[in-house]
């Protein structure tokens, strides 16, 4: 008998809901009378600053193009939601401007490797994305950087709009290190000495989210600067592909002395991290770090988290520098990682509008506020992220920055070890020694390429 009440409730709600739905659908179809109406669909994954900016830009675009509505789609990257959404939008041929992670040149292995590209690289190779190289707005961008990020056979298949200092980038508390008479370190030894001094003063020098592998940033920072030592910043794509070739040919591998040296430095830095860091999630790390003003002078995290850090503690006087990985200050340059890239699918129903949207995005004034909102480094030579106080160090070091090196080509189904050291298993986060890890990676790589 008592089941009747919930059933009745359910019935009422269904009836109410269907009528409500009917109302709303009739409303939306009724507004079609005001001349030809077009809908531009823009989609990106959710990042706090980027979404706010895109919403504002969409409003601006609608104002400038009467009769056009922008349908903005976004979802979190968690649980594969973003991947599913972007695939289904492409599949339904309904998206005009779509955000993708920059594939970089590593995603296009030479044909002798017999590796099939995935993600955006697969789309580019299959001719599913529009070549934007000759679009007028592309003049605003640095062509070399764009080609490194989304170039393929001479074309440029997207606008790489955001790049971040990721490898070895460290947030620091300006007031706290000033208390110990320190300035931003310029060499590896100086950085270690600073850490030692801070530790002696009872501080835990470095905070990081080890649960998601942020410690890899230390390794990658040192690795990038070491391998790029003495090279021109523009050589970085070549350095990456030379290394990939050397690995594929079997003349180089993970157990080379270079990587042993890099690993030794990594472990020296790692002795200064928060002891329980391996259980800290990236979802909590920046917030906790920002409110603990009297401890954790350094946070290993990318520049993309600026919005979160400032929201958690607006009064914090924070800055960002890149870990100096070598003892030659001139070699300690900033590796930047291409990130969000706008692409226009060939199936886009409104390509002209898409180009106009991208042109509006690329307008220096708009791009400036994009940089501010996302904490990205500029990919437009004429624009820089000057308004932000935490970016002071970065702004002085952008001129000689280089595109972050990419890993060797790894065939599908290969063990993760083949792609480099496993930072989760390497001590002090894990329990394996450096030699064990590097030998394991080397043999996994050799196996994966079938040699």
């Amino acid at each position, binding site marked *: 008998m008592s089941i009747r009440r919930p059933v009745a409730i359910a019935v009422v709600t*269904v009836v109410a*809901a269907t009528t409500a739905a009917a109302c709303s*659908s009739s409303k939306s179809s009724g507004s079609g009378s005001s001349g030809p109406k077009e809908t531009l669909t823009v989609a990106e994954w959710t990042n706090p600053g980027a979404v706010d900016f895109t919403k504002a830009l969409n409003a601006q675009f609608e104002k400038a193009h009467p009769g056009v509505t922008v349908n903005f789609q976004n979802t*979190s990257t*968690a649980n594969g939601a973003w991947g599913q959404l972007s695939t289904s939008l492409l599949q339904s041929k309904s998206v005009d401007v779509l955000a993708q992670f920059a594939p970089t040149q590593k995603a296009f292995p030479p044909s002798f490797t017999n590796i099939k590209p995935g993600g955006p690289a697969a789309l580019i190779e299959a001719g599913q994305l529009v070549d934007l190289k000759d679009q007028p707005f592309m003049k605003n961008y640095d062509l070399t950087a764009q080609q490194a990020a989304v170039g393929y056979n001479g074309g440029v298949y997207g606008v790489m709009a955001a790049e971040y200092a990721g490898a070895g980038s460290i947030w620091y508390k300006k007031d706290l290190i000033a208390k110990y008479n320190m300035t931003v370190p310029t060499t590896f030894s100086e950085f270690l000495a600073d850490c030692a001094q801070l530790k002696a003063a009872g501080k835990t020098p470095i905070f990081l989210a080890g649960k998601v592998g942020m410690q890899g940033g230390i390794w990658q920072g040192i690795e990038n600067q070491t391998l790029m030592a003495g090279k021109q910043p523009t050589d970085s794509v070549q350095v990456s592909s030379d290394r990939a070739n050397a690995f594929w040919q079997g003349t180089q591998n993970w157990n080379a002395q270079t990587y042993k040296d890099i690993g030794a430095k990594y472990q020296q830095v790692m002795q200064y991290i928060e002891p329980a860091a391996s259980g800290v999630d990236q979802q909590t790390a920046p917030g906790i770090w920002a409110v603990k003003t009297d401890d954790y002078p350094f946070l290993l995290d990318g520049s993309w988290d600026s919005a979160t850090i400032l929201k958690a503690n607006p009064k914090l006087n924070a800055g960002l520098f890149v870990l100096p990985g070598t003892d030659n200050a001139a070699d300690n340059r900033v590796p930047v990682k291409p990130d969000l890239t706008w692409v226009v699918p060939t199936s886009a129903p409104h390509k002209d509008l898409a180009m106009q949207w991208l042109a509006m995005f690329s307008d220096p004034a708009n791009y400036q506020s994009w940089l501010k909102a996302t904490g990205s480094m500029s990919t437009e030579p004429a624009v820089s992220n000057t308004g932000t106080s935490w970016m002071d160090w970065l702004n002085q070091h952008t001129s000689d920055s280089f595109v972050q090196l990419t890993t060797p080509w790894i065939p599908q189904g290969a063990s993760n070890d083949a792609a480099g050291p496993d930072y989760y298993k390497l001590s002090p986060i894990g329990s394996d020694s450096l030699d064990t890890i590097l030998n394991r990676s080397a043999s996994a790589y050799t196996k994966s390429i079938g040699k």
Partner: protein
Amino acid sequence: MSGTTTMTAAADQGPQTPGSSGASGAKRALDVPSRASRLARASGRQLLCFVIAAFVFAAPLVYLFLQSFKTFTGFLQDPTGSPHPWTKQNFGGAWSAGDFGREMINSLIYAVIPVTITLTLGVFLAFPISRGWFRHSNVLYSFFIFSGFLPGGLIPLFIEARALHLYNSMPGYLLMVSLSGAGFFFFVGYIKGIPREIDEAAALDGCGYIRFIFRIIIPQMKPALATFAIFGFVGAWNNLILPLVMLSDKTLWPVTRGLYSFFGENTQDWPLIAAGTFIVAAPILLLFILLQRFLVEGVAGGAAFGTQGVAKAAAEQGDE
């Protein structure tokens, strides 16, 4: 139905009703020591059960709930403590940021209609099989069971939905979800427990097949159906990926879809996330409180086997 009455009757004699113990205590004055020790043991068990239920099972949920009353900075400064100052603004913030109002109604539609249709269709599927009306009913039955463990395929399903014009439409989505959930062949076992003689008698009385199912069989299966309804509803309500992929129009979104954009925009603001989570979970909690007494009966009646099937199917759809 009879199960319900016994349960409520038993509940009235429960050990924690103080009035009844006083009255019976006077009659059996001689038993006092043993009665006292029995009471002590009963309350000891009560205490143990309370501790387990509250501190092991409910505490983590309460902990999250408490976070939703903190400010972001208040949370960061004292994550484990109780909220100070208390604030209700996270609920307001989450509610308005997520456009949860309309999405709640959509979610209700996506949960109630498919569950109702699937349950009905499930009975129609299960009945002939459990009565052995087909030449190889057993083979059919095992085939259905094992097909439940086959891997799903979201991309082929999506391509198919586009071809059939079910993409980005509420009726299309409802049709797809209602039909794909035909996993209720697990009713088979339950129906076997309903005596065959009823069929024969009804047929002799000239009762039609459809009327027979609705008037005789479905009422008999109430506990099983209620159990399934809960799991089906929960699965449909928590489903994220299918609506994400199949519904691109904002006006069609269910509440989980909105929540996902919301999570992404406030990745680290735990109090706000906690508030959003509880807003979304509130309707399921309510439904659970209303129907939970049927769960035990439904499971006891042999629906257990199927329930997991539903939960699993729903979870698969939700997670892929």
